[in-house]
């Protein structure tokens, strides 16, 4: 709505007549009406879902409209602050492009022709097809792909239905190899949020982690605080990230050579005697085997591989050695890079162990030992067929290997997959090689997607079930395992808009139609939460009012004589030399494997995050789109000049297999090496249903036709594609 000043004065004159004129009015008058004392705001605590950090937020509601989101001071992940995305949650709530009613496909799959349907009809269609698949092929032939809080509703539904085949991109396309690497070393993963004790560190080491652009609220708070307190920062990144801009030591490493650097660091720490001998004697095994295995990885050798001067490799190793154990080696998060990612993560974990930083102040703190009793539910049926979501990889996690399900869908082997149930993930953007995804989708009898926004994959579904946003629903309690144990509640701030429904309702209604109602034995989700709180001895009313409760006396972050660490490895000790890996035929100590470098005329394609977006899901959010409207391809300024590309002009990227991107703007910058390009992930959605971001920017995933599978965990290394730039035709 555009108002001239004169009409504004007139309208506001009318509004002063009283609340009646205001109540139906647009947002701007609500703030004014609040100022004038005509209406009072209410405040409702909940937690955020714009990313997966689950920050406590407090929504300010004026006359039924959410006008502001603030961080909840009682919540450990937000501490009273929200990032740009969290602040921008209102943009999602009131995005006019939201999915508003259930939709049923009336065209060919992917054609995007839909008709609105009632919930009863849409759920009926889904249930009928799911029953058909069960009857014809067995329940194992339905797979679920999921991410985030919808998982708490739909994974139980599909488990009750009888399939073990779950795939979460958070494993094989993200954290998987990292978690496996740490589990093989320490017996447990680094946690989410990662248990990094940045705030007490003297040295912080980031390897490919771009904190700041990677906006994980409390972790970035700690990062900035540590910088403020004078902690020294080492950043290994081929791009001059925001974090690199704050570093005392920036190591612009040749991409794909990180393991060489890590092994050289490990070697220096050992040969210069900077490791924590007493700590290792007590908690670790395999030191001498490790020492021997890394002895050939000298700084001079590493210089040739990594393009980092040997002197700087030595200097940074000494920075760590001198300040140990108060050194945070950040485990990273998105770790699926080159296909040897478990081993790289092992190297990070081993370095952490040598410095004695695990369980020490300023390093990695220990998880709370507190826990809450699990609610009892009817046991799920035992699947009749073995799960195929492990893909045959010996250390694949319980979150499943997404692309193994995709492959089975295409080949029909070891048994057919005929239905995909998808919630909270846009598989077109999260899985590499979109061709395979499309091929698999074409084999399906049923593709059902639960989503808030009309994302790429969503608009290929046979049936689309519109979930309401996180500000309109209950979800499962978030159990926080930071230093202390905490519990947070997600509760509706306003009633669901349009015909959208909470995930729990959708799952329960589907369960009814699948004769699985026994698994959802409650009338409302609030009833379920109340019961869970009673069982756990937590006051539901307090939780509802405060949003988050920290359970007292559950923090035991550091190793002390009374607080000894437990390592859930085979031997109960830190595995510097992994017998588990050896038994399965893998290298017990990470070795350096040289990866192919870009051929002449090509650049390695790398990708990362913008601080104001989460994958593709926020691209259309008006509050965030405004700040970042399309991604750019970063290219070294000198290289761009040689090739005749200028900042701001549009180009097309072509990869080694001939796959092309949409038009993308050039950012010629000094902030990147000459052998690579970089772009923010998640752009280049093609759907016209996203009225703002649709068709904008380049899709990195469209260029990732090749992926290097980690033989240990089955995760997909996605930094193995090479592209060149071409002028727009």
């Amino acid at each position, binding site marked *: *709505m*555009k*108002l*001239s*000043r*004169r009409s*504004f*004065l007139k309208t506001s004159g009318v509004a002063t007549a009283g609340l009646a004129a205001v109540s139906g009015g647009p*947002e*701007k008058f609500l*703030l004014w009406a609040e*100022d004038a004392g005509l209406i009072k705001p209410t405040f409702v605590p909940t937690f955020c879902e714009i990313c997966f950090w689950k920050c406590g937020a407090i929504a300010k509601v004026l006359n039924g409209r959410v*006008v*502001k989101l*603030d*961080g909840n001071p009682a919540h450990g992940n937000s501490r*009273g*602050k*929200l*990032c*740009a*995305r969290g*602040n921008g949650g209102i943009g999602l709530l009131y995005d006019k492009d939201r999915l508003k009613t259930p939709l049923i496909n009336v065209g060919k799959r992917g054609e995007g022709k839909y008709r609105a349907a009632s919930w009863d009809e849409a759920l009926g269609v889904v249930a009928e097809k799911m029953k058909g698949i069960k009857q014809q092929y067995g329940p194992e032939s339905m797979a679920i792909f999921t991410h985030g809080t919808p998982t708490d509703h739909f994974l139980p539904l599909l488990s009750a239905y009888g399939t073990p085949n779950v795939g979460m991109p958070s494993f094989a396309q993200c954290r998987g190899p990292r978690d496996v690497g740490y589990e093989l070393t320490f017996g447990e993963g680094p946690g989410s949020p990662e248990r990094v004790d940045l705030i007490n560190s003297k040295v912080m080491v980031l390897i490919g982690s771009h904190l*700041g*652009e990677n*906006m994980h*609220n409390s972790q*970035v*708070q700690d*990062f*900035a*605080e540590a*910088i*403020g307190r004078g902690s020294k920062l080492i950043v290994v990144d081929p791009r*001059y990230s*925001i*974090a*690199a*801009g*704050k*570093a*005392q*030591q*920036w190591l*612009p490493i040749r991409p794909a050579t990180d393991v060489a650097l890590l092994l050289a660091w490990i070697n220096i720490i050992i040969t210069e005697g900077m490791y924590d001998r007493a700590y290792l004697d007590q908690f670790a095994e395999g030191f001498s085997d490790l020492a021997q295995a890394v002895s050939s990885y000298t700084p001079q050798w590493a210089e040739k591989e990594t393009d980092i001067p040997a002197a*700087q490799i030595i200097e940074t190793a000494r920075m760590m050695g001198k300040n140990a154990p108060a050194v945070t080696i950040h485990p990273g998060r998105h770790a699926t890079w080159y296909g040897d990612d478990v081993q790289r993560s092992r190297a990070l974990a081993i370095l952490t162990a040598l410095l004695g930083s695990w369980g020490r102040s300023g390093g990695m703190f220990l998880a709370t030992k507190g826990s809450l009793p699990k609610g009892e539910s009817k046991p799920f049926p035992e699947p009749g067929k073995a799960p195929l979501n492990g893909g045959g990889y010996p250390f694949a996690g319980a979150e499943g290997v997404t692309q193994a399900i995709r492959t089975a869908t295409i080949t029909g082997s070891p048994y057919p997959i005929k239905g995909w149930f998808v919630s909270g993930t846009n598989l077109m953007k999260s899985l590499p090689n979109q061709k395979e995804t499309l091929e698999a989708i074409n084999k399906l009898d049923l593709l059902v997607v639960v989503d808030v926004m009309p994302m790429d994959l969503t608009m290929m579904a046979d049936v689309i079930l519109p979930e309401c946003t996180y500000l309109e629903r209950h979800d499962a309690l978030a159990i926080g395992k930071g230093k202390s144990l905490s519990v947070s509640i997600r509760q509706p701030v306003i009633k669901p808009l349009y015909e959208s429904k909470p995930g729990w309702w959708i799952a329960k209604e589907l369960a009814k139609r699948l004769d699985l109602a026994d698994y959802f034995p409650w009338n409302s989700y609030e009833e379920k939460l109340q019961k869970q709180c009673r069982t756990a001895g937590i006051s539901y009313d307090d939780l509802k009012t405060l949003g988050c409760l920290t359970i007292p006396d559950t923090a035991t972050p550091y190793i002390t004589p009374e607080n000894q660490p437990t390592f859930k490895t085979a031997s109960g000790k830190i595995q510097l030399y992994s017998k588990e890996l050896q038994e399965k035929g893998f290298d017990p100590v990470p070795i350096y494997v040289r990866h192919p470098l870009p051929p002449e005329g090509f650049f390695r394609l790398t990708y990362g995050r913008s*601080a*104001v977006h989460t994958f593709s899901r926020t691209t259309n959010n*008006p*509050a*965030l789109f*405004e*700040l970042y409207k399309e991604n750019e391809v970063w290219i*070294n*300024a*000198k290289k761009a000049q040689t090739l005749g590309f200028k900042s701001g002009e549009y180009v097309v990227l072509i990869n080694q297999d001939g796959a092309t991107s949409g038009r993308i703007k050039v950012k010629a*910058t*000094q*902030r990147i090496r*000459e052998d690579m390009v970089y772009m923010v992930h998640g752009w280049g959605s093609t759907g016209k249903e996203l009225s703002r971001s649709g068709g904008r920017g380049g899709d990195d995933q469209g260029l990732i036709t090749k992926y290097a599978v980690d033989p240990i965990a089955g995760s997909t290394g996605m930094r193995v594609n090479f592209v060149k730039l071409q002028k727009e035709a």
Partner: protein
Amino acid sequence: MPKYAMVIDQRRCVACMACVVACKNENDVPPEQYRTRVLEMVEGEFPLLRMELRSELCNHCDNPPCVYNCPTGASYKQKENGIVLLRKNRCVGCKACVAACPYNARYINHEKGFADKCTFCDHRLKEGKEPACVATCIGKSRIFGDLDDPKSPVRIALQGADSTVLLEGAGTRPRVYYIKKFSKPE
């Protein structure tokens, strides 16, 4: 009488833009318009680079050109706390203040027609809260308080710090202070 001021500790800023979005929600700033912004500036040649991240907003100058250049008396400096504000009902949208401000801190609200700018969230200050951008600042880079109070966060932040103001030579006597320390090329 408090003498309100803001300190931007640039060392702690991570350019996450939380301040920008919080400000827009808090103050109902129209699309594509801003009361505050964060600039990302890099100089040097690969790999010898340095970066400056700088939050900018109204400087609430003690010698405010926008106030002097306002023909209708709409712009004024609040006596009791030094915040530069605007009486919307007096503003005719003539843009004199927009042109006069050397910090590019003002805009004509394209939905409402009058000049608009940062108010240090004076409506929140009255409730005892910090400005919205400060409250949500992830890096505690934005610091707010009373310059006359030795215990205020701004005084503590400025103590012993090498601080500057923007365009000191313009003689505007800003109330937004910057602590900037470049990361040094190694």
